[in-house]
């Protein structure tokens, strides 16, 4: 029998468990009944007994490690099989709260670590819900109903009550069935609302396809993420008034940091190399940027900041790095992920360069116009979202750099042509031509130097 706290750490019974089992002094004591559950989990890899958690603190760290390393190999995964044994639910809940407290106290609610704990919890619960899918649909549906109703009323909830969940960007408003602002979430409400509209099709199937278990799961995950975030914020606020943070929590925080550093060095161990074909990413050659781009990168001091950064700089900086040859390609309709599949370059080089320029404007662009971050994402092809995510790619179009003519028309102050501007019609063409010239120059110089 699966208990709700296994899926929802914010259910009432979960809170009861925490007050029963969460005594501070037991957290780093060897916990025999935990070890029994771990050792008796089906499919559990028992080859490295010393890596198995013996305490609640150890279990908290194990949750985090699973999240960091789960993708590294098959055996790694089986190492944490006990996390997906429903019997662990009581200890699991306590260790979840431990994890939240540790990052809240040591790193604060806005830290990268806190965000990772949110992601980690979401992943664990998703995985558990995935396993739940082996059960009959009826069971899943009523189980989710029970879990959700600990947090909201699934027969009477308005989308405007879920603004904070929607804000997390994991659940989109267009996935919700809405009638007069109210969510249609349960089957009986679905039939009452839309039953008359459905002909020649099985209503239950229509329900499952458009709402059903899928949306209930997403909503539950969203609510849990929100509650976790709020919990971390609360703990952080309280900790500011605390004299001496608990040593167990501080130790756990150190362990978390260490695990995370290990994961990072695994990830970035192999350095990438770049080659010089022009419809593939090439490294920036800043000396070859045209005058208008340089001017914009120094920040816009007078009016017209928005258009300069969003409409002008964003396309240039992205295409010049990822696909400078765009205009000589047959197919001009490309997506960023076609050339930067992991978005590593986009997130680590392009966005920072745009943000730097925005920051250099006076006043700094995002200070009074934070929504321009969304507009930038949208011009890169990722829809109207504050977070740049692969899921949203294609909702908008990746804007190509505008022509000199357009620039002169709409942002005349940017264009202060140099001699190299004579032969070109687009700043990107300027860049490509200039790079070629610079390379030639370089070779000539080398020939001269060597020729002597």
């Amino acid at each position: 029998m699966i208990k709700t706290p296994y899926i929802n750490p914010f259910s009432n019974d979960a809170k009861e468990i925490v007050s029963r089992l969460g005594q501070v002094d037991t957290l780093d004591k060897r916990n025999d009944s935990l070890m029994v559950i771990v050792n008796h989990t089906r499919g559990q890899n028992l080859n490295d007994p010393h890596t198995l958690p013996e305490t609640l603190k150890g279990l908290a760290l194990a949750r985090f490690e699973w999240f960091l390393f789960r993708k590294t190999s098959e055996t790694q995964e089986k190492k944490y099989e006990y996390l997906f044994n429903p019997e662990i639910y009581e200890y699991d809940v306590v260790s979840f709260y431990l994890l939240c407290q540790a990052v809240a106290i040591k790193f604060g609610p806005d830290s990268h670590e806190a965000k990772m704990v949110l992601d980690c919890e979401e992943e664990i619960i998703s995985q558990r819900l995935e396993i739940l899918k082996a059960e009959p649909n009826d069971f899943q549906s009523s189980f989710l109903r029970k879990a959700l109703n600990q947090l909201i009323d699934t027969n009477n909830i308005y989308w405007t009550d879920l603004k904070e969940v929607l804000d997390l960007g994991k659940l989109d408003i267009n996935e919700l069935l809405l009638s007069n602002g109210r969510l249609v979430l349960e089957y009986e409400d679905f039939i009452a609302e839309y039953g008359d509209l459905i002909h020649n099709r099985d209503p239950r199937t229509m329900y499952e396809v458009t709402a059903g278990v899928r949306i209930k799961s997403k909503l539950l995950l969203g609510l849990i993420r929100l509650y976790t975030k709020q919990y971390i914020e609360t703990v952080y606020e309280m900790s500011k008034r605390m004299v001496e943070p608990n040593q167990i929590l501080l130790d756990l925080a150190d362990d978390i940091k260490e695990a995370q550093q290990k994961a990072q060095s695994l990830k970035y161990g192999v350095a990438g190399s770049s080659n010089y074909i022009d419809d593939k990413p090439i490294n920036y050659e800043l000396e070859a940027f045209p005058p208008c781009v340089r001017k914009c990168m120094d920040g816009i001091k007078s009016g017209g900041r928005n258009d300069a950064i969003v409409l002008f700089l964003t396309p240039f900086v992205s295409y010049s790095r990822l696909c400078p040859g765009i205009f000589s390609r047959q197919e001009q309709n490309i997506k960023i992920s076609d050339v930067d599949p992991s978005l590593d370059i986009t997130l680590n080089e392009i966005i920072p360069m745009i943000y730097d320029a925005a920051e250099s404007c006076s006043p700094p662009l995002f200070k009074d116009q934070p929504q321009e971050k969304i507009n930038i994402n949208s011009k890169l092809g990722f829809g109207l979202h504050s977070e740049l995510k692969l899921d949203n790619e294609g909702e908008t179009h990746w804007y190509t750099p505008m022509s000199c003519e357009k620039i002169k028309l709409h942002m005349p102050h940017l264009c202060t042509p140099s001699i190299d501007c004579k032969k070109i019609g687009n700043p990107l063409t300027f860049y490509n031509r200039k790079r070629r010239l610079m390379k030639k120059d370089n070779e000539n110089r080398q020939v001269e130097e060597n020729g002597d």
Partner: protein
Amino acid sequence: MEIELKPASNYERKIFYREEWDVKDVPDFVMDSLTSREFGFDHFGQGPNDRYKTFQDALRLKRFIKAKQPFASYCSVAYYDNPKQRKGWQKSELVFDVDAKDIPIRTCDCKEGEVCDICLNQAKEIVLMIRDVLKGEMGLKNINMVYSGRGYHVRVIDDNVMEASSELRGQIVQYVIGAKQPDLTNSLGFTNLQHFIIPFGYSKNFTKWSKYTILHLTKDSKLDNVNKKLLNDVIKHRDVLKDDLWGAFRADVGPRRFEKVMAAVSRINMNITDTKVSIDLKRILRLPSTLHSKVSMKSTLIKNIETFDPFDDAVPNFVFERK
């Protein structure tokens, strides 16, 4: 009567503000929150660079406007603790801006930047559809429609949505104008589920907007990834959509090409309103009751949108006196 949309002269502007404009025509939804709003003015037709203005009461607003006779007047969609410095943001109206000159599927012969009764009427059809979604599915209250001078603003003053972030507003806009293809992948093994089969929810909304867009395409429309031949085929076969025969339309165009068309259509839908305006929490919008000097029209709060006609209800008196 044929009305020409030409700029107002300085003299006409003066006459308008002296004789016609009345502070009582400023909508209640602005007056009720007057002291929380930022005002902005364009005195010389070069953009609203006189900003950070505030007014304590109707009298002061009236005096200022009567005295300055501004080229254009705006007020913030945002409410602030301290509007003079745009600090202490409390909430913002949810707005949709449909500018007739920017509708991507105009069927008239207007050149860039121009508007006429045909595209203005299209703008009206669009805001009506927007209002229906806001009211029906979203369940929002206090939805105000304003004629802006060259199009329409939908301004929602409902506390349930006024604290929404830019991100959430982005989602709302995409929903309301059908700007995203519905994700119909599912775990139940339905591989060929089409949005037009689903008579409710977002799919229904997307289908409705897409129908509107496809029926308004012209042979000069620009669709991403859709070549001339495909565009012509769409136009050739689209009439069945008037009877909602989507299955037939899809079969005529061909399923793979249909997919291409729908992807492009969703992007066109996205441009039906200016999304930048909707997600900007600190925008200023033209103040209803004031003059749009570039076209000599009054920005007007609309009492009954069904019967509203800008050429009857938003033309300042001086236009009729022109020779």
